[in-house]
């Protein structure tokens, strides 16, 4: 008997705004002037904050940090496509997206200076904290989305971000499968920045794309230019719309590049060459977005200068505040272990404080 083809699949790639700033008018999403400017604002802020934090790290004023430069379109345009009432979960490489969700630079400085006080403080409490355990946030997003629906919220969705390396973890596969089975309103956005730490994408998977992994779980998958704000926005918006309409989860692969080190503890010259980095500079997401805005008469050099000055001033002030004296208590790590700590832990807190007193007396 001849073999019959019983299923056929293909994967599309979407680009709307190319490296030179040309737009495909057919696909161009309908974004208001305010949204476009907000997006540009946060992408610029993210880039500036990233470089300031790296500077502070080099001076020994912050601990180990991830670098987010180059991926602004992926994490900012995706966040723009959800509402404040939607859930957001991510890893640690979505700086501008977190700022858009209402995290503050001050908190991030505290966090990366090793203080619990900075680890959670969102204006929007539908944002999960940074997740360092790779892919562990994906199943959470499935549960958040499903849980909100079950409790009567008719159009809440969850957006979850993660890296290409994370797609090798069981949690990635299990979450996609689970979401498909539950028809959960989740959007999985993989920021494929081409590297885990030193390990390139092609050593993570033999698949030609990350997007095609959706096929195995029966959900839509698409690869988009992750440095193109319009493609990221449109693909996420489309997926969100499907999710809101009870059409289930989607996977989006945002094809981007990590321009700097994995974290400040990493030396990328050990595993990739400068020419590759140079080539990706041409594809910078901010550069082409600026051309786009300029062509739309929404942007000019003066506005750019004003924005940079304004952001620099805010950042300077925040850094100053960060470096001024704080009133953090030494026993804060005991604060959020349990709602009802019980006697063992309370005794330990007393013991800790007593010890501390003895130590300061000895000094």
């Amino acid at each position, binding site marked *: 008997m001849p073999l019959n083809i019983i299923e056929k699949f293909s994967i599309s790639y979407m680009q709307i705004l190319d490296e030179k700033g040309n737009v495909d008018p057919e696909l161009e999403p309908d974004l208001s002037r305010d949204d476009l400017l907000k997006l540009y604002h946060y992408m610029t802020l993210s880039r500036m904050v990233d470089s300031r934090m790296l500077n502070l790290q080099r001076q020994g004023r912050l601990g180990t940090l991830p670098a987010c430069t180059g991926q602004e379109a992926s994490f900012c345009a995706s966040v723009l496509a959800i509402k404040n009432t939607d859930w957001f979960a991510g890893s640690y490489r979505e700086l501008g997206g977190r700022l858009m969700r209402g995290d503050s630079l001050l908190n991030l400085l505290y966090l990366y200076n090793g203080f619990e006080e900075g680890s959670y403080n969102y204006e929007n409490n539908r944002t999960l904290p940074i997740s360092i355990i790779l892919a562990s946030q994906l199943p959470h997003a499935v549960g958040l989305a499903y849980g909100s629906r079950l409790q009567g919220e008719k159009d809440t969705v969850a957006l979850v971000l993660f890296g290409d390396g994370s797609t090798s973890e069981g949690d990635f596969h299990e979450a996609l499968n689970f979401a498909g089975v539950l028809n959960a309103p989740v959007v999985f956005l993989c920021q494929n920045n081409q590297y*885990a730490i030193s390990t390139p994408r092609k050593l993570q998977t033999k698949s030609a794309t990350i997007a095609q992994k959706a096929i195995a779980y029966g959900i839509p998958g698409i690869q988009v230019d992750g440095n193109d704000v319009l493609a990221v926005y449109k693909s996420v918006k489309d997926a969100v719309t499907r999710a809101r309409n009870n059409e289930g989860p989607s996977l989006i692969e945002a094809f981007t590049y990590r321009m700097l080190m994995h974290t400040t503890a990493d030396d990328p010259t050990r*595993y990739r060459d400068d020419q590759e980095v140079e080539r990706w500079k041409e594809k910078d997401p901010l550069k082409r977005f600026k051309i786009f805005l300029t062509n739309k008469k929404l942007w000019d050099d003066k506005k750019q200068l004003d924005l940079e000055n304004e952001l620099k001033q805010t950042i300077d002030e925040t850094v100053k505040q960060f470096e001024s004296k704080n009133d953090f208590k030494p026993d804060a790590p005991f604060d959020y*272990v349990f709602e009802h700590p019980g006697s*063992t832990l309370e005794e330990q807190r007393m013991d800790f404080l007593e010890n501390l007193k003895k130590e300061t007396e000895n000094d």
Partner: protein
Amino acid sequence: MTKINMVQSLNRTLHQIMESDEKVLIMGEDVGLNGGVFRVTEGLFEKYGRKRVIDSPIAESSILGVAIGMAISGLKPVVEMQFSGFSYLMMHQLEGNASRMRTRSRGQFTVPLVVRMPYGGGIRALEHHSESKEVYFAHTAGVKVVIPSSPSNAGLLLKAAINDPDPVIFMEPKRSYRSFKENVSDDNEKITLGSAQILKRGDDITIISWGAMMRDTLKAVQDLEEETGFNPEVIDLLTISPMDTRTIVESVKKTGRCVIIQEAQKSFGPASEIIALINDQALMYLEATVKRVTMYDVPFPLFGRELLYMPSIEKIKRAVLETLNE
């Protein structure tokens, strides 16, 4: 004789073993081209190639699962968990399979593999990069748990772990990775798994520790020796499980006093086990309650406060003095 640090010692041992035993294979995240995030596997990829030094996908569960298969097939995998904080993803393979394959197959299949992982605090790291969870592994029958404390014992223990016929969790105190150097001899010195080491003989008090805490413990002991002239016995556990109970019990019977320094949180740790052991076998010899200096039962604090929470030289000295004066 050359003075080298712990990373260099581990690296040297791996090079020696890869050279002498072609069944040994290295696998883990970023262990190849990058030489591991702490450079413990540096140079192996260049020398032995991608077939024996595998940059694996990020999948801790399968790193151990695949290694179990490799071990059953006859290889001796030495796999790396990039940080112990990510090793929990392999727990089901450890508890459900690595530890029981010998039992379940009635000796037909054995799993001679080593899982290396940096652990411990004090290096100003991000969340999940500072815990000491040796007890998770020690609570699994059929798995050995080994923790070196110095450049010289690290290499020897790693060699013993690789040559051991059963699965070994090899926890590397990353705070001690580069903090000091030692002469590491090239001769055929040996340490057997399951033996603690008496670093200092004495009869006033038994002081027990392991891993990165050994360094602070020795400093505290040295200070107190100068200040009080006391004569302590100091034990480096080296193997957490199975524990060298005889060395501990004999020492405590002799000294009648004991302090244990454990970097892990207080409750349910190896220190609790040692106290239970003393209770079982040396209770009548005690002249003071057994003390432990530990972390608190809180999620490991971020680095801004970590040193306040970890055992310190001062805390160790206070506990020892209190025990001596009790």
